[in-house]
């Protein structure tokens, strides 16, 4: 074990898998950086989060491939490479750029297996940065996992800790289906204990972050930390069973239902917009399958149905806060 940041854990997962399997390649915009610049210094930036320059030094230009700003070609190239025997990791710099390349993801990669009658394997990982919190406004801040989660054929991963990031990314790279791996930009500097060797975390297995008998709180991504803060504050007063599903597709509904059967109360916390969201989905599952266990109407704590504002004072209102989570917990207890 060693202390690593979320950023380092992601780099380490790629390094371990690229060293283990020559079929793993990595491509994206500026993941190396510096090609063609006046300093003649390839590797100069190593990704806009500085996570990947060392991979270029270690594995070279044949496997760490800098691309022009051409998201459709990147996603299609990765999908085509996956169809023909490689195991590409493609970086979509910001999840918001989904809009310029969605066809290659949802009409192509996601559908190969079904549409071609089971002949295809598409071992493709799309790593993408997501989430609000750094005043980067409406086109660089969105929480778009509900859109990916809606598409059959895609798996969607939402790590909240360095440990989960490394284990889930290795699982994603070894997985034979297309995986959308969503990295919250506010988590990159978070530190945590991470094993030095390769390990995997299965998809569809939630993490029970806190145990409590009064309220089930299901939180996604960065919201896990806000909810944990509330659970710790309320310890002794209200017991919170805090569940981090870790993947939204597949979604571990068993763990959620077991918890609600025990607590009878549910709060779902999601940074995404509220319509057709994971918050809606979790409440729908619980209402359908554990209605008799409920002692109070479930609550959702989400962003409002607006784009993400630039002004920090507004962005802070946009992002679900620990105070809003606490209010919802107290409301279901009332």
């Amino acid at each position, binding site marked *: 074990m060693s202390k690593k940041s979320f950023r380092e854990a992601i780099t380490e997962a790629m390094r371990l898998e690229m060293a283990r399997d020559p079929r793993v*390649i990595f491509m994206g915009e500026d993941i190396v950086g510096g090609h063609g610049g006046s300093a003649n210094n390839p590797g100069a930036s190593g990704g806009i989060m500085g996570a990947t320059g060392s991979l270029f030094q270690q594995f070279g230009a*044949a*496997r760490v*491939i800098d*691309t*022009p700003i*051409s998201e*459709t*070609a*990147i*996603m*299609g*190239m*990765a*999908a*085509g*490479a*996956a*169809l*023909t*025997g*490689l195991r*590409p990791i493609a970086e979509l710099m910001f999840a918001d750029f989904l809009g310029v390349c969605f*066809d*290659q993801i949802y*009409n*192509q990669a996601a559908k*190969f*297996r*079904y*549409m*071609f*009658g*089971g*002949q*295809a*394997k598409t071992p493709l990982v799309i790593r993408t940065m997501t989430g609000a919190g750094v005043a980067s406004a409406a086109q660089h801040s969105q929480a778009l996992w509900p859109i990916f989660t809606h598409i*059959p*054929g895609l*798996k969607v991963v939402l790590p909240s800790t360095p440990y989960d990031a490394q284990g889930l990314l290795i699982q994603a790279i070894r*997985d*034979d*289906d297309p995986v959308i791996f969503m990295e919250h930009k506010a988590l990159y500097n978070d530190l945590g204990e991470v094993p030095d060797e390769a390990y995997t975390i299965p998809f*569809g297995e939630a993490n029970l972050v806190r145990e409590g008998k009064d309220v089930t709180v299901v939180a996604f991504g960065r919201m896990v930390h806000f909810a944990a803060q509330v659970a710790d504050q309320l310890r002794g007063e209200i017991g919170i069973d805090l569940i981090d599903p870790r993947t939204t597709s*597949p979604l571990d509904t068993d763990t959620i239902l077991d918890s609600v059967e025990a607590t009878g109360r549910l709060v779902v916390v999601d940074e995404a917009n509220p319509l057709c969201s994971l918050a809606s989905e979790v409440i729908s599952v619980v209402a359908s399958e554990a209605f008799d266990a409920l002692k109070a109407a479930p609550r959702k704590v989400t962003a409002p149905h607006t784009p993400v504002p630039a002004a920090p004072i507004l962005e802070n209102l946009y992002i679900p806060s620990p105070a809003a989570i606490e209010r919802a917990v107290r409301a279901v207890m009332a």
Partner: protein
Amino acid sequence: MPLGHDDLLRAYRILKTIREFEMRVSKEYEAGTIPGFTHLYLGQEAVAAGFCMHLTDDDSISSTHRGHGHCIAKGCDVRRMMLEIYCKRDGTCHGKGGSMHIAELWRGMLGANGIVGAGVPLALGAALSAKTRGTDRVAVAFGGDGSTNQGGVFESMNMAVVLKLPLIFAVENNGYGEHTGIAYHLGAPSIASRAAGFGMPASEADGADFFAVYEAAGAAIARARAGGGPMTVVCDAPRWRGHFEGDAQAYRDPNEIRHIREHRDCVKRFRERVLGDGTLTAAELDAIDAEVLRLIEESVVAAKAAPQPRPEDLTSDVYVSY
């Protein structure tokens, strides 16, 4: 690469199989026995044949909504293709793809594609695979004139040049993007000039002449195999039918269709040439005609009688594991 006797027989068999397959699909579609909608390759047979004669199963192609011809030329199983067009359980894609999604991945046929231009980035990926593995394999991205207005095609052209990938853009200019003529939809003076603007060589061939396509494709493919990078080959290939079967084609002068059928029939031209120069005999060609007609007849009869997908097939093969 000179064409030997067996090559010529193989080329004719491909041309004739595509022709008869599509004629029969057209007839059956009109009779209402085929579900969904379908786009036929009639008139363009020489393009698929001229390219795929240079390819092996290790090379990849991506295709279009008008994909039956590419599948046949790449060697896909004709009987299973017909089953797929009838959406039957034993079809190429177990009835879940239909006419627009026929694929045989082990044969390097990466799928027909329902989205115009979307197969091109996939072929780019196959070319990346070939280069990353250090092989001399190539990928061919088939697309129509309409697809050359799609952003993903532009991106792929630039990316292929930047990464120097063994990819050939095989553009089939049939004069129409769906119902809109190229005189309207193409902003550049020609497709070849546009491709050249991306920094790659581009050549042009008469897409109704198998031998012209074969030569142009051969040069581009040999260049890519040798590490020379991407190239575009534009083939003028007449579309005999509408955008889809049932298209009334009010946007076309009937004389245009009559003219191309009479004067730009690639199967007829192939036959005339090989008989004229004595490289094949009428008996050899007639024997292939008979075999092909029998194959198509058997395929249709079998497809009509074949079992439907089972209800449980609805939810299978979404994921490898979930």
